[in-house]
């Protein structure tokens, strides 16, 4: 049962063609010619040697069943069976007439070697599927649901055969059969590989086949074109006009579809394929299962993945959380650290004694710490935490408690001290009694020492609680106000009652007094002669004047060493006392030391002003009214870290200490530049005002006391005050300035009103119509008044001197008005007033003006120059009048005669005078006879006598006498000239020469 070789096959094929398809080659058997005629056009295309199962389907089926089971053992068994039962047959592909393709089976009779057709033949169209089984050289063809299996030992033959079938199927079948186990391409390859192996033979055969094919195909084509084209065209609804490409596409589509169908049908019809399909199905289902499992696993893995992710996230979150919590913990612990105050601090604040230095220091530290805790740098969010706010509120509570305690303690301490001071004072008063009153004010405020101890705490309080700080300040002010009030009051009283000089020793500069005295004098006039009294007044005045100047010098001494010279020179006041015992009020005999009122004011101010300055500086420094800079620095301090803060705080405190390390009086007494901040200025003024509440009033009391008895002291006091004003004008001591200014103005008013009184007095003087004689009191007082004011003025050249100047002017004016009121009488009512009165007035004016002139000229006061020259003019004027009166009184006719001649001369020539009856030679002679040398001398003697009778002022008499001499001599000269002129030829002369006249004056003067 061996398969035939290729060559054998070729021979077989030849034989078959010769026997069965003789048409092609030489037909050998005639018997079959008829048959051949029928089969004339039949053509053998391909032949394959196959082995067929004898018992048709039974074994095949069982084999197939075995195959599906996949059991190899059964397969081997069956293969043995199958070898035995297979018959050798030939399958051939035959093309018949009209392109009908048939597959025919041919069998060979082994004995005869004749090939014959088997009964069975199949149409190509009936092929549903073809299966090729590679391992066993089997192949099966399913024809209309019936499967035939052939074994083909020759691979090549089989493949060629199948290839041909497939080719034909592809070409001529609408529905392609299914192929299992191979495809066209595979077949093609196979065929080609064979071709390569046997190039010559196969190519020959193929070319032969091809030629045949070609011929057949040509025919076929013609037929198909003729028969089908139209149908086809109709079928596919094609029109010549429509798109060819579309048609191509459509055709192509249809073709591919057909092809696909073919393939499908090939496969479908294959049983094994179905098996495979079912197996595949099961495999697929199994795979599905596995897929399900896999997807399940995948899902599970995914789940796990997400879980892991979640856990990771959680982990991360936890880490963040822990980190956050760590941070929070840190933050909170820091906060807690910052916000916890050691209990000892609180106990310190609550109970540490504030009376010892140590305790104060402790408290300072604690308070600072507390403050730092409160003002700690926490951001706003933290600050808004309830716990924090509560804690801070708690701190504020401590703070408030401590500040209360502190301020109470300070106040109590201060009160204690102030009580102490007052007690001591009381005691000392008791012990010293009235034996020795010392004009002293206490120089140092010991309460300051106490407050000073607390200065840091006070500063602390200022920053913590301004209200309490202010309260404390006010309390301090209240307490020391009590002390100062008392001190100043005592001082002022003491000064006023015991030390203040009541007045200048002289009273002659007071115009009012002058009037009183004048009244007295006029009363006395009735008893004694007026001249005596006025003389006595003048004398007294002069005495005093000397003393006055002595005092001047003395005072200058005391001024030069102002601070030490609290006392006045004893002798001075002694002498003054003895000399003017009648004028001075009896003084209390406790003290014989008197203070000149301006000096008293100076002393008072010197005593009190340093206290004021000290107090102001103290308050400014300790209570930090002016510490806006410090305030800021302490504010910024809190922004820094705590450690730095402490250091800085120390630094600041040290700086501060440098400023006020101790209560050094020198530092405290420093006078600073003006305070620029008006707020502080106002405040400190207010405070000072309330501390030295009564200072202003007491100062005014002192000033009033000083000027009460003698308002001219006001000028002296004004001068002193003015000095102070100048000193304190541009300083921070606004309070002092204001007070002093106020007092100064008060003094101005006092002085003004005093002067008004004086002016009134002078005015009143005018009305006294009682034949005044001698130097009038107003005139005699005025120089004293000037002296007094000048003395008080002390070379001042400011406001006070201005006031004084005005006063001088006004006074002089008044005086002149007064004098004018007398002279008015003379000039106006010439006739009413008799000669004697006129003469008296002249004398009065001359005397007064002379006095005024002389007295004031030597004082060299500029403002009075005008009045001095005025006085001189008046003096000259009245002197002239007086001289005339006096001379005409004694030599009336003599003078009148020549006056008449002079009058005539103005209209007539000198020569004509003699012709006038009145002035004839004879009358001249008779006149001259009456005034011989003797007569003249007598007349002059009388005149001189009168002179000394008229004038009380002795120094004035020679002056006037000289002036009269000159006047008279001038008259005589004039007379001589007239005689020579008018009576030139007569040789009549005066009885005396000018020399004789001079001798006469001399004699008279001497005789006196």
């Amino acid at each position, binding site marked *: 049962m061996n398969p035939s070789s290729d060559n054998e096959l070729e021979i077989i094929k030849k034989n078959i063609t010769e026997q069965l398809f003789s048409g092609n080659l030489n037909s050998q058997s005639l018997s079959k010619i008829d048959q051949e005629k029928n089969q004339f056009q039949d053509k053998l295309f391909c032949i394959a040697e196959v082995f067929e199962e004898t018992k048709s389907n039974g074994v095949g089926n069982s084999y197939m069943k075995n195959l599906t089971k996949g059991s190899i053992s059964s397969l081997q068994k069956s293969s043995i069976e199958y070898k035995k039962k297979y018959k050798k047959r030939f399958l051939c592909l035959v093309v018949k007439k009209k392109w009908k393709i048939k597959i025919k089976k041919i069998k060979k009779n082994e004995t005869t070697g004749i090939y014959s057709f088997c009964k069975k033949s199949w149409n190509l169209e009936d092929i549903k599927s073809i299966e090729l089984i590679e391992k066993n050289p089997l192949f099966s063809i399913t024809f209309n649901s019936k499967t035939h299996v052939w074994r083909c030992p020759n691979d090549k033959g089989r493949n060629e055969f199948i290839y041909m079938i497939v080719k034909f199927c592809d070409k001529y079948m609408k529905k392609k059969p299914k192929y299992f186990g191979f495809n066209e391409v595979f077949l093609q390859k196979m065929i080609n590989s064979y071709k390569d192996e046997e190039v010559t033979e196969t190519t020959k055969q193929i070319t032969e086949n091809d030629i045949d094919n070609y011929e057949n195909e040509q025919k076929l084509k013609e037929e198909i074109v003729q028969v089908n084209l139209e149908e086809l065209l109709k079928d596919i609804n094609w029109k010549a006009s429509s798109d060819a490409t579309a048609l191509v596409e459509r055709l192509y589509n249809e073709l591919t579809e057909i092809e696909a169908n073919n393939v499908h049908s090939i496969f479908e019809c294959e049983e094994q394929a179905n098996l495979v399909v079912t197996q595949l199905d099961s495999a697929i289902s199994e795979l599905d299962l596995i897929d399900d499992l896999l997807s399940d696993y995948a899902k599970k893995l995914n789940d796990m993945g997400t879980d892991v992710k979640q856990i990771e996230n959680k982990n991360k979150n936890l880490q963040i959380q822990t980190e956050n919590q760590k941070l929070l913990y840190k933050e909170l612990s820091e906060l807690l650290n910052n916000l916890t105050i050691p209990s000892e601090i609180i106990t310190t604040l609550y109970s540490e004694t504030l009376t010892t230095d140590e305790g104060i220091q402790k408290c300072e530290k604690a308070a600072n710490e507390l403050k730092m805790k409160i003002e700690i740098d926490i951001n706003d969010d933290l600050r808004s935490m309830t716990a924090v706010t509560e804690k801070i509120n708690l701190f*504020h509570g401590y703070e408030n408690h401590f500040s209360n305690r502190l301020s109470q303690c300070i106040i109590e301490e201060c009160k204690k001290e102030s009580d102490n001071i007052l007690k001591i004072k009381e005691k000392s008063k008791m012990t010293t009694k009235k034996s020795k009153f010392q004009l002293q004010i206490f120089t140092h405020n010991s309460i300051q020492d106490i407050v000073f101890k607390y200065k840091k705490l006070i500063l602390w309080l200022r920053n913590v609680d*301004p209200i309490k700080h202010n309260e404390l300040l006010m309390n301090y002010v209240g307490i020391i106000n009590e002390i100062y009030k008392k001190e100043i009051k005592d001082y002022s009283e003491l000064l006023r009652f015991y030390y203040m000089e009541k007045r200048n020793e002289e009273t002659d500069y007071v115009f009012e007094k002058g009037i009183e005295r004048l009244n007295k004098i006029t009363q006395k006039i009735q008893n004694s002669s007026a001249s005596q009294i006025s003389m006595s007044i003048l004398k007294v005045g002069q005495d005093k004047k000397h003393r006055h100047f002595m005092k001047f010098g003395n005072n200058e001494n005391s001024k030069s060493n102002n601070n030490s010279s609290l006392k006045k020179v004893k002798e001075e006041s002694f002498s003054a006392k003895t000399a003017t015992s009648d004028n001075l009020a009896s003084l209390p005999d406790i003290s014989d030391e008197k203070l000149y009122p301006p000096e008293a004011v100076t002393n008072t101010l010197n005593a009190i002003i340093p206290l004021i300055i000290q107090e102001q500086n103290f308050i400014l420094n300790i209570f930090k009214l002016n510490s806006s800079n410090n305030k800021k620095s302490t504010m910024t301090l809190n922004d820094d870290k705590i450690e730095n803060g402490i250091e800085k705080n120390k630094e600041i405190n040290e700086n501060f200490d440098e400023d006020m390390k101790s209560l050094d009086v020198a530092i405290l007494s420093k006078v600073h530049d003006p305070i620029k*901040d*008006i707020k502080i200025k106002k405040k400190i003024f207010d405070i000072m005002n309330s501390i030295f509440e009564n200072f202003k009033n007491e100062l005014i009391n002192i000033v009033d006391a000083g000027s009460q008895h003698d308002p001219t002291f006001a000028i002296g006091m004004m001068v002193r005050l003015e000095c102070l004003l100048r000193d304190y004008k541009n300083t921070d001591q606004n309070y002092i300035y204001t007070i002093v200014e106020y007092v100064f103005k008060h003094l101005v008013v006092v002085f003004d009103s005093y002067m008004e009184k004086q002016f009134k007095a002078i005015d009143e003087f005018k009305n006294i119509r009682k034949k005044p004689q001698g130097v009038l009191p107003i005139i005699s007082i005025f120089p004293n008044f000037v002296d007094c004011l000048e003395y008080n003025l002390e070379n001042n050249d400011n406001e006070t001197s201005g006031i004084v100047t005005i006063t001088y002017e006004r006074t002089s004016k008044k005086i002149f008005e007064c004098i004018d009121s007398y002279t008015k009488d003379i000039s106006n009512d010439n006739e009413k007033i008799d000669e004697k009165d006129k003469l008296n007035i002249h004398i009065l004016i001359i005397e007064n003006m002379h006095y005024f002139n002389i007295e004031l000229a030597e004082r060299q006061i500029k403002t009075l120059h005008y009045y001095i020259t005025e006085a001189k003019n008046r003096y000259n004027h009245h002197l002239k009048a007086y001289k005339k009166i006096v001379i005409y009184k004694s030599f009336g006719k003599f003078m009148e005669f020549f006056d008449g001649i002079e009058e005539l001369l103005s209209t007539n020539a000198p020569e004509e005078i003699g012709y006038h009856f009145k002035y004839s030679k004879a009358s001249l002679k008779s006149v001259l006879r009456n005034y011989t040398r003797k007569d003249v001398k007598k007349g002059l003697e009388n005149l001189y006598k009168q002179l000394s009778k008229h004038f009380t002022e002795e120094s004035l008499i020679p002056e006037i006498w000289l002036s009269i001499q000159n006047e008279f001599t001038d008259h005589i000269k004039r007379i001589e000239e007239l005689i020579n002129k008018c009576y030139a030829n007569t040789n009549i002369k005066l009885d005396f020469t000018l020399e004789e006249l001079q001798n006469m004056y001399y004699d008279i003067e001497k005789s006196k």
Partner: protein
Amino acid sequence: MGKKKTQATTTPIHKIIMVGAGGVGKSALTLQYMYGDFIEEYDPTKADSYRKKVVNDGEECFIDILDTAGQEEYAAIRDNYYRSGEGFMCVFSITEAESFAQSQEFRDQICRILDNEDIPLLLVGNKCDLAHLRKVSTREAEALAAEWNCQYIETSAKTPSNVNECYAMIIRLIQQQKQSANKSKSTKNENQKNCCVIL
């Protein structure tokens, strides 16, 4: 001395606190009231305290005026100051709308700290002499005052108009408050007693 002591203890002290934005004239008002002087220069206050003895409605009393800082940087220290206040003057400048807007914050802060809505408070519109620069109308301010249930007054520290009046008003308010507080205290005590009985 003794006299003075007793006086000091018996005369009531009213604590007024000046609040308001920076530069509205709290200090100017205070100084005008204290010293009768207008101060032109501006120097931001941190905190200044003043005391004055006044006679209000025939009654002698001390008034403590705390002039606080309007600047925002001092806001933290305000809290503590407010605690001691009995009456507040909420000052704003009629020429500055923002200062008016800030008034609300100040009032809120006061109410929050004192935990009381009816503290004596006065809304003060300062700088009314600068009428030509006015930015806040009287009606607006009055509306706000009505909302706060308090009075509104316009002042000028410069001219000075209404300065004494506004302080008199706040003192009166404080006095009233104190009186009513005393009353309520006594009634409260009674109530407490009653409660005790019931318990």
